Structure formats: structure tokens, C-alpha cells
């Protein structure tokens, strides 16, 4: 599975994207975030800050309960600030 990080979340993981092996117990975006928190402690620190981390699965906005599978691209990023 491909995982991507944007903006200051990318600075907390130190990587823009990575390929990871999806563990069998990880079935949702929320579970994936927990799993990645162990790998990237500074990413884990902000996971519980309400509304700070947003998700996308296959380039669509997703919630913590959105299912994920090994062929998906999942992205983590802060609230958007474009325009």
C-alpha cells in the first residue's frame, strides 16, 4: 500500500510517501493511522488533536472508518489552505 504525507505532516514523518505492507488487522483509515503512529512517533503525537489530520483514500476525502486495502493509496494531511 502506498501512503503519502503532505505539508507539515510530511515534515513530521520525514517522508513524502512510502510503500508499506498492510497488516491483516488494519482495515480502516483510523486503524492505519494508529499503525503508522508507531512507525512515525512525531506523526503519532498529533493524531489525537481534533481536526488536525485529514485523510484521503484513492484521492477522495475519507473518514477514520473508511475501509482500506492493499491496493489503495492513502494520504494524510492538515486542513487545506489554498486559493
Amino acid at each position, binding site marked *: 500500500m502506498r501512503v503519502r504525507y503532505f505539508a*507539515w505532516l510530511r515534515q513530521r514523518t520525514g517522508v513524502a510517501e512510502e510503500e508499506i505492507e498492510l497488516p491483516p488487522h488494519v482495515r480502516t483509515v483510523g486503524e492505519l493511522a494508529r499503525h503508522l503512529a508507531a512507525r512515525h512517533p512525531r506523526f503519532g503525537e498529533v493524531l489525537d488533536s481534533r481536526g488536525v489530520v485529514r485523510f484521503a483514500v484513492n484521492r477522495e476525502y475519507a473518514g477514520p472508518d473508511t475501509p482500506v486495502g492493499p491496493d489503495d493509496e492513502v494520504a494524510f494531511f492538515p*486542513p487545506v489552505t489554498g486559493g
Partner: protein
Amino acid sequence: MIRVQEQPFDPAAELAAFTAGRTDVGGTAVFLGRVRDRDGDLVIRAMTLEHYPGMTERMLERLEGEARRRWPLLDVLVIHRVGRMTPGEPIVLVATAAAHRRAAFEACEFLVDWLKTRAPFWKFEETPAGGRWVEARASDDEAAARWERPAAE
């Protein structure tokens, strides 16, 4: 039409080309967003816009589709830059064309408001004290919420 690009664009040339030669457009509304030299009390030397390639275009195309469903638009143009820009440089141009002005104005505001809250862009500002990521503003969420419709049909 949607364009997301690194290279600078010329708003005047884009406006000249937009609906050129058409005689059915009564009203054109345009919004041009540019880099400011200040953000509150902070001096801004430059700004970098990061985005999520692929998702950005998809979201902007969806916004264009939604605007066309809601208003009788004759044409729509959204150009959004990414990368590093300095004060005065254009960031975003949104233009809408319609037979009458109300549709053009409303659709243009709608596109800018939703773009600011739904398109995956992130601003990084360079100040004399160092760099910082811009935080999302509640006022942008409120502006975007004006256009919400009940989900049920």
C-alpha cells in the same frame, strides 16, 4: 476548464481569451487572488503552495461540475498555481460567464469559497523570522458552508 500549474500565468491574457468572440455572454465575473506582502502583522517574503497532484485536479473538476449544475454557466475557468511565489504574483484566477450577472457572480464566489476548503493545497510562508505553514481559517469554513445544500433530494 481547470488548470493547475507551476508556471506563472497572465491574468489579463487569460481574461482576454476567456469567452473571446462569444456574443451570448452578458456577464463575466472574475476573482484574482495574489500573494500579499503581509499576513496580519507578519511580513511575507515568499509563499510556497504544495498540493496533492491528481487529487487537486479531480476536486477542482468536481467543483466546476457542481457550479455548472447550480447555475446556467456558459463557461468556467479556474487556474491555480503551485510552487513558490513572491508578493504581487497571481495565485488563482476564477472566471465565470453567464447570460446574466447574478449567475456569474454567485458561481464565482461559490467556486472560490469551495476551492479554499476542498482543494488539497497547503500554503507555506517565508517570513523574516523563518518559515511557517498557514493554518486553516474558520472564516473560510463559514464562507464555504453558505453554499451547503441538504444532502437529501
